[in-house]
């Protein structure tokens, strides 16, 4: 469970002051399939970064499970991300010199998982994202959609509590978008994996079970479909 309370974020470089988030309160339960939408500059990325422990709120708390991540040191936070949060970014998620299989295995190596466990899980995940025949390809030998599917498999590999995805389909064509959404949806249904993703794409929004609309750094609406 993710619990965001009274979170504000103000960027102030001395000259310009931007209030990116102005008092966000939201709870996301395990198993949800949530889209965060809103116009450009509304604060979607900022919110996801704060939930993911990549950025710190100016005020307020983010509690994930039992942990108030605002209280963690930099290194503790990195470790927390490794073991609790899966990330899918807009693009260039993967390590260019590693194959699909090695990319998926990567976080499990950092977690010191045994070879047997790594092999089993990598095979299973690449199959789940439909890339069992691409395991030895490097990122630059795969399409954008395939790369994002590898990124989803990698995010799942570390057995996170939930997956955060900031505009994961922004660089994909509609077929790849639909395919990626299918995979995420199925993982949500079958494995009960929690997904929180931001998007501009109406077809992606249509697939979400919950849509949180952000505008001007505030939650405008929060609808379960």
């Amino acid at each position: 469970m993710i619990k965001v309370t009274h979170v504000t974020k103000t960027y102030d470089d001395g000259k310009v002051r931007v209030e990116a988030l102005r008092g966000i309160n939201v709870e996301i339960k395990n198993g949800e399939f949530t889209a965060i939408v809103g116009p450009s500059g509304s604060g979607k990325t900022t919110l996801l970064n704060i939930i993911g422990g990549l950025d710190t709120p100016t005020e307020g708390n983010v509690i994930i499970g039992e942990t108030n991540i605002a209280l963690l040191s930099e290194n503790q936070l990195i470790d927390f991300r490794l073991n609790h949060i899966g990330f899918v970014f807009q693009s260039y998620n993967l390590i260019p010199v590693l194959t699909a299989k090695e990319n998926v295995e990567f976080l499990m190596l950092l977690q010191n998982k045994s070879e047997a466990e790594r092999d089993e899980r990598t095979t299973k995940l690449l199959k789940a994202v439909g890339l069992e025949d691409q395991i030895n390809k490097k990122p630059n030998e795969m399409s954008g959609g395939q790369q994002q599917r590898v990124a989803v498999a990698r995010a799942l590999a570390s057995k996170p509590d939930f997956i955060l995805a900031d505009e994961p389909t922004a660089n994909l064509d509609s077929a790849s978008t639909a395919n990626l959404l299918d995979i995420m949806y199925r993982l949500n249904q079958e494995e009960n994996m929690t997904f929180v993703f931001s998007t501009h794409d109406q077809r992606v929004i249509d697939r979400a079970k919950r849509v949180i609309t952000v505008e001007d750094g505030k939650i405008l609406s929060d609808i379960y479909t």
Partner: protein
Amino acid sequence: MSFWDKQPYLTFVPFVMLFKLAWRNIFRNKRRSIITVSSIIFAVIFAVFMRSLQYGAYGNMLKNIVSSYLGYIQVHKQGFWTEKTLDNSFSPEDITYLLDHENISYLSYRVEGFALASKDDNSKPVALLGLDVQQEKNRLGLDKKVVQGEYFTNRKTGILVGIGLRDIMSLRLGDSIIFLSQGYQGSMASGSYPIIGFIDLKTPELNKRTVIMDLAQAQELFAMPNMVTTAVLGLKNDNWEETQQEVIARVDTNQLEVLNWNEMLPELQQLIAVDKAGGLFVLFILYSIITFSLFGTVLMLTEERSFEYGVLIAVGMAKNKVIIVAILETILMAITGIIAGLAFAFPVVLYFNIYPINLSGQMQEVVEKYGFEALIPTSLDPSIALSHAGIIFFIVLAVNMYTIVKIKRLEPIKAMRR
């Protein structure tokens, strides 16, 4: 939590993976990696070859002067080395007890004086060296240095003349030379001696002014029977420093001075010091260039990879591990370059050790003017190669400080902004 303290029993697996990442990164921009490795190879070859040549030249010079002429240690009457008059002489009996020292195998006595040498209307000041022709033949192989005529084989009369002096005075075998000088305690010294051979002492300076005769003849010429100016100590091993101290402790230093080759050749030492400093300056420039080019590589690498480093840290890779991957890349290149550089340098250095470089033309003249032999074998001292390999490795570590600081400060969301 840092790299090693988490489940240390399994950290080997991630390390293999970090190594794999670094290794594959090297091949991402092949051209840059090749340039980086080549510049290291070049630097190693250049530095090692240059230093081997320099140290080889010094070693050769010292070997020639010390082993074939000067000896490591000499005993004189106190004050002889600064004021080289025959009055500063002593009796060999005064020091025969030094033969009891375990590192001294023999004592070789000499009379070193100066004279004006004349042939027809041609005269030159020369250094007249009287020595035990039989003993020095055995000890120093002086007979092998005779290039024309013959050594004192069955005779003790006559003189050997340096080949430099031969050329200056246009001398020929069998010519007689008249010497004029002041002998012991103000006596007149003069005599005429036939040339029985010409000798190459391997040092142009010596060749130009040296005349050698038997010790007894020199004592007679200078009217100093049973007196010598110099005793060369023949050492069993090269440990001259300790031996010198022990000899000093045994002799009466009010009467006698005990000098080592360093003290007798201060100009040579200075010359070597100046030459070494010149070499260091060249190396300093070389290493500065290498440092900047490596720094350029590290800078580019760090900038190029910072998006990726941002992703790695974002998904949960500890910064220390990211740092290891980043610096391992240049360290692996450095190791490759150093090993290849040494592999190339070794046969070159070895070749010029076996077939010394023979300077010619103007270079030869300049070098010989300073008393160097124009034949330079390279030094095979492994510490030369090791020290330069070490310096380059250190430079690589130093320029990687940039990467370390950069990654320590890296904020993933900033690094991942495009």
